[in-house]
């Protein structure tokens, strides 16, 4: 296992298109790979990132007709203690009640066959999940995982 000695970061932004869900989890996984984590850890990170990015695409910009022009932002850092922090931000509708939104099986899109398990999955796979949101302004989901 390679020792991480200094902090590293990257930023990315891309259109809120579902085809970019795979791209998003792949770039975070590639970035995290520099710490040489276990394969299972990379798998967990990819799944958590996919959940957060999908939320941006499915929920944050749901009322926007120009959804493909809306943007998802990722800020990712890896510190000297091998702690990976991934911030996934949108400028969408925001979440009125974050506590409620994080409850298992809660979804505002049952017709789209959303399971309502996105936040539960993120919480299960990460050491910490923080959600800050302002209705009408957007949401930041922060995923923290020791790798």
């Amino acid at each position, binding site marked *: 296992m390679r020792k991480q000695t200094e902090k590293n970061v990257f930023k990315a932004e891309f259109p809120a298109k*579902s*085809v970019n*869900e*795979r791209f998003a*989890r792949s770039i975070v996984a590639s970035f995290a790979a520099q710490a040489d984590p276990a394969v299972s850890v990379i*798998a967990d990170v*990819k*799944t958590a990132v*996919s*959940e957060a990015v*999908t939320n941006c*695409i*499915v929920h944050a910009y749901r009322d926007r007709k120009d959804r493909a022009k809306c943007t998802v932002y990722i800020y990712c850092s890896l510190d000297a203690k091998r702690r990976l922090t991934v911030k996934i931000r949108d400028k969408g509708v925001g979440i009125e009640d974050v506590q409620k939104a994080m409850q*298992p099986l809660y979804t505002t899109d049952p017709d*789209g*066959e*959303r*399971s309502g*398990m*996105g936040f*539960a*999955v993120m919480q*299960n*796979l990460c050491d910490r999940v923080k959600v800050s949101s302002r209705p009408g302004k957007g949401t930041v989901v922060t995923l923290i995982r020791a790798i």
Partner: protein
Amino acid sequence: MFPKGLVKMEITETKNGREVVARITGEIDHHSAGVAREWLDGMIENEQPPRFGMDLSGVTFCDSSGLGLVMGRMRKCGAVGSELFIVNPSAEAEKILQIAGMDKFLKIEKGVKV
């Protein structure tokens, strides 16, 4: 093969007695789940088998969109009188089913030759 170039997923259908098993390979996320849903629902509606299996042995990535895919197919199968079962889930698929607690009530068959 799925019609969308970036979707690395394919479903093949095999009949084993009165069962229909759909094999799903590749990455199940929100992007690919919609296409998979159409294929699977077509199979369920056309065949209406007593038992309908989703073979997840070839799934290399699965997020909660996969849970939605399974839950939706469970409802679909129930509507036509079929019993849904999961066949040989990969580690990735099984983990997400376990996180959601779906392994407690889904019929999961491992070590099955299809």
